[in-house]
C-alpha cells in the first residue's frame, strides 16, 4: 500500500486558497529562477520563497530531514562547479583571480589546485540561491498539499483522468519507495551488510549496492503490478470518471494566480530585456 507524505492541516492563511493556485505559485517561483544569473535577483526570489514557506506555517523541526538531504545534494553540486570552474563558462568570459589554492602533493606530475576568482565565487552564490529557491518551493509541496487531493489537483490543471491519477500515485510512490528502502536496509543489515564499509573501485561499489537496489526495485515493480490489478478490478479507466472532491477557484485564488503569472511572465520579460544577467561587483 502506498504511504503519503507527512501532510497535516496547519490552520495557515494559505490553506484557504485552492491547492492548484498554491501549486502554481510554487511552480512559478521555481521557474522564474531559470531566467536569471544575477545573485541579487536570485537572492530576492529566495527570500520570497522563504517568506512563502513561513506563511505556510512550516517549521524547521518537521522539515529538517528534507532540508539536510536536499541541502547536501545542492552543496555537492555547487562545490563541484566551483572547484572545476566549468559551470559558469557560458555566463562569463574573463575571470579576476583572487587566490590560487593548491595542495602540497603531486600526482604523476600534476598538483591539484583551484583558482579562486570573483566570477567563480559569485557564480557559486547565484547557483546556491537558485537551488535554494527551488528547494524551498519544492519542500512546500508534499507538506502542504492534501494527499487525498493530488489526483484532482492535476485533473483540475487540465490533465486527463488517467494521467492525473498516475501523478497521484507517483507522488505517493516516492515516500513508499523510501519506506521500502529502509525496510530492505534493515533486512540486509541483519545479514551483516554495512553500507559504510563498501570498498573497491566504482564498478565494485555499484555491485556492492545490489543487496539494496535489487530488492527495492523488484518490490516496487511488484507493488505497481498489485496497484494495477486492484485498480482494474474496480473499473479504473473504463470511461470518464467522477472526482469526488470538487475544486473551485474563488476570488482570492485568482489574486494568487495573478501573482504567479506576473512573477513568471514578468521574469521572462525582464530576462528578454537583458535584466538579471550574471553580475559581479
Amino acid at each position: 500500500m502506498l504511504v503519503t507524505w507527512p501532510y497535516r492541516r496547519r490552520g495557515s492563511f494559505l490553506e484557504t486558497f485552492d491547492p492548484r493556485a498554491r501549486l502554481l505559485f510554487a511552480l512559478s517561483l521555481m521557474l522564474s529562477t531559470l531566467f536569471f544569473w544575477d545573485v541579487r535577483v536570485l537572492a530576492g526570489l529566495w527570500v520570497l520563497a522563504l517568506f512563502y514557506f513561513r506563511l505556510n506555517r512550516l517549521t524547521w523541526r518537521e522539515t529538517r530531514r528534507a532540508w539536510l538531504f536536499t541541502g547536501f545534494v545542492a552543496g555537492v553540486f555547487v562545490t563541484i562547479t566551483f572547484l572545476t570552474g566549468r559551470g559558469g563558462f557560458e555566463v562569463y568570459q574573463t575571470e579576476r583571480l583572487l587566490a590560487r589554492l593548491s595542495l602540497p602533493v603531486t600526482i604523476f606530475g600534476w598538483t591539484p589546485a583551484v583558482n579562486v576568482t570573483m566570477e567563480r565565487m559569485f557564480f557559486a552564490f547565484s547557483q546556491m540561491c537558485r537551488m535554494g529557491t527551488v528547494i524551498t518551493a519544492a519542500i512546500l509541496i508534499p507538506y502542504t498539499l492534501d494527499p487525498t487531493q493530488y489526483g484532482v489537483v492535476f485533473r483540475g490543471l487540465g490533465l486527463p483522468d488517467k494521467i492525473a491519477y498516475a501523478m497521484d500515485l507517483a507522488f505517493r510512490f516516492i515516500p513508499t519507495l523510501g519506506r521500502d528502502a529502509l525496510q530492505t536496509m534493515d533486512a540486509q543489515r541483519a545479514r551483516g551488510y554495512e553500507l559504510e564499509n563498501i570498498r573497491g573501485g566504482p564498478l565494485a561499489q555499484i555491485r556492492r549496492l545490489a543487496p539494496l537496489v535489487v530488492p527495492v526495485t523488484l518490490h516496487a515493480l511488484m507493488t505497481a503490478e498489485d496497484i494495477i490489478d486492484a485498480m482494474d478490478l474496480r473499473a479504473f479507466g473504463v470511461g470518464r470518471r467522477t472526482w469526488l472532491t470538487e475544486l473551485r477557484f474563488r476570488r482570492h485564488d485568482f489574486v494568487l494566480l495573478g501573482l504567479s503569472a506576473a512573477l513568471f511572465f514578468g521574469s521572462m520579460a525582464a530576462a528578454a530585456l537583458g535584466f538579471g544577467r550574471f553580475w559581479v561587483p
Partner: protein
Amino acid sequence: MAPILEVHDFTFRYAARPQPAVQGISFSVEEGEMVLVAGPSGCGKSTLLRALNGLIPRSYKGDLQGSIRIGGVDPRTWPLARLSQQVGTLLQDPERQIVAADVLHDVAFGLENLGWPRSRILERVDEVLHALGISHLRDRPTFQLSGGEKQRVALAGVLAMAPRILLLDEPLASLDPQSAQEALALFRQLHQEGHTVLLVEHRVEDAVRARPDKALYLEEGRLAFMGDLEAFFERVDPTAVKVPFPVWLRRWPGVRGRPMPRVEIPPASPSAPPLVVFEDVSFGYGDGPDVLHGIRAEIRKGDSLAILGPNGAGKTTLLKLAMGLLKPRRGRVWVGGKTTREQTVAGIAHTIGYVFQSPSQMLFAPTVWEEVAFGPRNLGHPPDQIEADVRWALELVGLLDQAQSSPWALSFGQQKRVTIASVLSMRSRILVMDEPTAGQDYRSYMRLMDAIARIAFGPAPAVDALVFITHDLDLALSFANRVWVVADGRLIADGPPEEVFSDPETMRQGRLVPTSLLEANRQHWRRIGRFLRAERLVEFLQGTETAHRA
C-alpha cells in the same frame, strides 16, 4: 433457476509457463450460496479467481479453454465496468487493494470510475461504511489503519459497487485471531443478506466458522472434491489442510500409519543463561509517542519463544530492538554481554539471526546459493566454512536441489525458506523469525517448522534458542515452550503456553481466540502435563482410549 456461476471444463495456461495452472475444472454455484474454496499453495486457487474476476484474460494472457458463465453470460463479452459490478474481489492482502490516501476516497474509488454523480457516491459510501460498522473511519488516512480496519475498508470498496458475487481471497491471512473472527462474522452476515460468496481459504478450521454451504477442494490444478462440509472432512487429508481437531480424531485411523515428527521440545528453563535481556525498555519512532513501554524480559538458552499479539502491538519493534536496528528511548537491551548501543548490527548478527517477514525485502542474488552465502561472507567466515554452512542450511530447508535457481523464480513458500536458510548459514546463536508461516499452506509450514525445531532441539542442536512472531495460536502451542503476549506496547504475559493460553484476561487483551486444538489441550493437559500438537494429542487420546478398551 440457473446457477449464478457456472464453470465448465476450464483450463488455463499462463503464456510464460509450459504447464496449465488449472485443468478441466467444472462446478456451479447457486445464487446466495457460500462456497469454501480450499487447497494447498500452487493448487490453482489464484488462477481460478483471476478467471472469475476478469483479470484473466484481460491482464494475464495465456491459453484459455472451457467456459465460465455468470448469470448465463460469458463475462469475457462484458466490459470491465459491467464485470466489476457482477464480481467483487477482496484480495488476500488488503494493503494490495487499497489505492486511495483516505477511507472515503478509497471506498468511493470504483464508483468514481463508473462515473456516478457525486451526491450518489457519497450516499452509497456512507451506506456501506455504516453497514460494515466503520463510519468512524470515513476520514482517516488509509495507511494509518490497523490490519482488521484495512480489510473492512477494502471490503467496503468492493461492496460499494454492489457486486452479485463476492470473491474473498484468503481474507484471514494477515489478521490477528480476534480480527479474523470479526471478519468471518461479517462474511456470514453478507451471506445471510443474500450475497453469493466464494471464500478461498486454506485455514479451513477458521473458514468453517463462516458456515459455508459447500466446499470445493483443488489439488495440483484440478478439482479434487466438491460437496458439503461433512463429506469434505471425511475426505480431506488432515495433514494437508488445517481442520478442526474433532476431524483429526475421526480421521486418525487413516493417518496413524504415516511417519510423524519426533522432535521433543523440552520445557523452557527459567534458570537457563540469558542470551538477550530487555532492561526496562521503552521506544518510540521519531518524535512520536512511546510504542513500547517498560519491557522487562529475557530470552534464554533453550527457549522456543512464540510472540503473539494484535497487529501493531509492537512485536516486530521489540525484535528490531534486540537486533540493534532500533535503539531504545529509555532502558537497555543486552545481547551477548553488551548493550545494543555498544555493538554494530553486524556484530549482533553473530548472536541473533533475524528472518524478516517478506522475502521480497531481501532477496537479490542471481542464485539461491549466492543468496545464502551472502550473510556468512559479510560476517567474514572462511570460504570452507561458508561452503559447508550454505550446503547445511539448504539441506535443512529442503532446497539444495534449487541451489543454482534464481530466488525470484521460486514459489513464495520456497522464497521464505531461502530467507531462513540465508540466516541459518550465518550460524547465529538465536534464530528469530517474523511470521515464518505467512503465505504458506498448512502442510508446507508444518514441515518447515518441524525442520526448524530439529535445528534447535534435534540430536545436534545448531542454535541455542528459537523466537518466532505469529498470529497462529496452534503453531505457538505446537512449537513453543514459552509464550509472550504483547498488547498496546506492553508485555502482558510471559510463561509456558499452558499457563498463558489458560488465562482468559490475557486471551482477551491479546485478541487471541481459542481454537479447537487449544480447547482439547485445555481439557487434557493436566493429565498429559503439557500442551501437544494435533498428531500427538490425538495419538495420546486414541492410545488412552485403546488402553481403556483393552
